[in-house]
């Protein structure tokens, strides 16, 4: 561990963030079954290493601004080798938004693998961990890349490994069906993205996001750009689980093993990230961007409404949380759409930036409390073997810690203080109110509606008289509790000190999205 070695690692950290989980994904299946927990330990070590690398990238980006990494260059920062004027190398470009998304993904992957060691039964160890690591590879590559074709490749790595994990219990018919639905949606979404990449390449002759963005904004607007923008927005909106393409969400979230569901919720945030990258960084000054902004706002408002009302009538614990998650996606879409519609508007300084901060902060928060809710639902299913709200009851006596953890997650999703959900939702209400009061009212009302089924679920599962069938159950195993405690601590800390996160993460991320000149400047 010489200083040279450490600085070499730090210099190449962006590439290693992708390489470490990718390589360890193919080492894990080689472990023999009789070596017991060796494959789990190896996966955890690989994920810890990835987490440290992502953390180093995150802090270097926070302190030093956007980082670029050219694959295969003698000096990684040199993006235009040997006097070329066009970036033809594959380049990773990490701004604050990419870094925070990568950090959230790596953290949740680490926590859910920690949980899955005890929490997921009948996982043929090697296969399960291999797919989890591949999913993290796809996620980190997807948010770190500055190359448009790589977005497609990592998108497919992410969705193919997700399908493997959703349909992990092949003996369940429902799991297979959910996997098929998710695969057909994600395959169509990524083919749309591929077609848009082909169109943009034909028009601009480059694949680098910064170079395409500069060409789009400076060289006037061609009809091909409009078609590509429409295809990209359609593809990413399909994949992030917004209404009207939300139907895969409850199926996939409901049927996958719980530890997977936590990462899957983050994976759908990845396509939100790509939507923001495309609509702000690539097409920010496009005259027709208002249409995309209003599509985001209207679909967001519909997601808020449909998610919260469908949540009311669920009797299945995991589907209930999944519908709640759809309504939270609506929050992010409304906030970011309001910010996008306000670009160039004289009142942008008043509410636009604040709406974007709220949206990005909510993206981070949503990932954590959704994961917490799914993991604690998983603990209930682990103990009782059922997720039907009608059958469950009186578990608070047997599993008090799980009850408290579930309550923390439910509070955050309902947006009650002192959780992080409150902090980001209040930012969104305040700023969106100035944009359009009706939107703030819709958001507020649906947040209240979501509270009802969450309270119902808590009462049905934990309160009430003891059910005879469940008299023998015990508190959740320690490994699972540790994973949930970590998530709950993050949820409460972000809720108690929201100012720090907004000032040091959400605002720089929003500014990075808006400052496309700086984004081009790193490459060209």
């Amino acid at each position, binding site marked *: 561990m010489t200083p040279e070695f450490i600085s070499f690692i730090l210099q190449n950290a962006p590439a290693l963030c992708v390489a470490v989980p990718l390589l360890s994904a193919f080492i894990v299946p080689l472990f023999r079954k009789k070596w017991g927990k060796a494959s789990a330990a190896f996966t955890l070590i690989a994920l810890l290493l990835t987490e440290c690398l992502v953390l180093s990238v995150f802090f270097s980006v926070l302190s030093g601004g956007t980082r670029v990494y050219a694959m295969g260059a003698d000096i990684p920062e040199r993006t235009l080798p040997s006097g070329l004027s066009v970036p033809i190398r594959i380049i990773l470009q990490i701004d604050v938004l990419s870094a925070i998304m990568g950090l959230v993904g790596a953290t949740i992957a680490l926590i859910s693998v920690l949980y899955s060691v005890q929490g997921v039964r009948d996982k043929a160890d090697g296969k399960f961990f291999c797919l989890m690591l591949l999913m993290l590879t796809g996620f980190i590559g997807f948010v770190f890349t500055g190359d448009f074709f790589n977005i497609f490749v990592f998108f497919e790595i992410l969705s*193919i490994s997700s399908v493997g994990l959703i349909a992990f219990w*092949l003996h369940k*018919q429902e799991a*297979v*069906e959910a996997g*098929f639905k998710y695969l057909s949606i994600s395959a169509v979404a990524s*083919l749309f993205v591929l*077609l848009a990449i*082909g169109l943009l390449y034909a028009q601009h002759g480059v*694949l680098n996001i910064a170079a395409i963005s500069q060409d789009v904004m400076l060289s006037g607007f061609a009809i091909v750009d409009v078609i590509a923008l429409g295809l990209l927005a359609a593809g990413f909106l399909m994949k992030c689980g917004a209404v009207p393409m939300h139907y895969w969400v409850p199926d996939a979230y409901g049927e996958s093993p719980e530890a997977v569901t936590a990462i899957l919720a983050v994976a759908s945030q990845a396509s939100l990230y790509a939507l923001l990258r495309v609509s702000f960084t690539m097409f920010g000054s496009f005259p027709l961007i208002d249409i995309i902004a209003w599509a985001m706002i209207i679909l967001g408002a519909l997601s808020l409404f449909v998610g919260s009302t469908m949540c009311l009538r669920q009797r299945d614990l995991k589907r209930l949380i999944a519908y709640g998650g759809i309504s939270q996606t609506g929050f992010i879409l409304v906030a970011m759409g309001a910010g996008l519609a306000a670009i160039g508007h004289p009142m942008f300084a008043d509410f636009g930036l604040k709406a974007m901060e709220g949206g990005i902060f909510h993206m981070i928060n949503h990932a954590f409390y959704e994961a917490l809710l799914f993991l604690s639902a998983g603990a209930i299913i682990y103990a009782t073997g059922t997720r039907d709200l009608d059958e469950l009851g009186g578990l608070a006596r047997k599993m008090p810690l799980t009850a408290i953890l579930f309550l923390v997650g439910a509070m955050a999703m309902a947006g009650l203080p002192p959780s992080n959900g409150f902090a980001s939702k209040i930012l969104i209400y305040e700023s969106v109110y100035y944009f359009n009061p009706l939107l703030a009212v819709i958001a507020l009302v649906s947040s209240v509606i979501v509270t009802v089924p969450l309270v119902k679920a808590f009462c049905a599962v934990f309160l009430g008289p003891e059910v005879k069938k469940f008299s023998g159950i015990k508190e959740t195993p320690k490994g699972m509790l540790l994973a949930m405690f970590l998530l709950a601590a993050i949820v409460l800390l972000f809720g108690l000190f929201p100012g720090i996160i907004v000032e040091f993460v959400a605002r720089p991320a929003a500014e990075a999205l808006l400052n496309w000149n700086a984004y081009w400047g790193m490459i060209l």
Partner: protein
Amino acid sequence: MTAEIIGNLPFIVSVLMIMVGLSALLFKKNMIKMAVGLSVMGSGINIFLVATCYRFGSIAPIFTNAPLSEASKAAVEMALPVPQSLTLTSIVISLAVTALMLSLAMLAYRHSGTLDSEKSRRLKG
């Protein structure tokens, strides 16, 4: 006019294939047919990508095939290599997706005894 149509034929074919694939995915209930539709759609996009990189009378973009003498360099053009490599990657990915989709359809058939996605459907609401 005819020359324009012939010149744009690959693009017309690719759009038709994308439409056929998409409509099969949307309107067919048989899971195997949905997988076929997805595969057709992917092929349509691959044709589009290959068609964008082709120049009339060009040769394959292989470094060792490049003409040696200075005089013949101007005469022979090469096709653009980037979309071709994109197409190769996308063929590999669509193979994986189709295989996965067919195996899921097979498993669904084993469970429910039918390939009709409406009849075997269990997840609602």
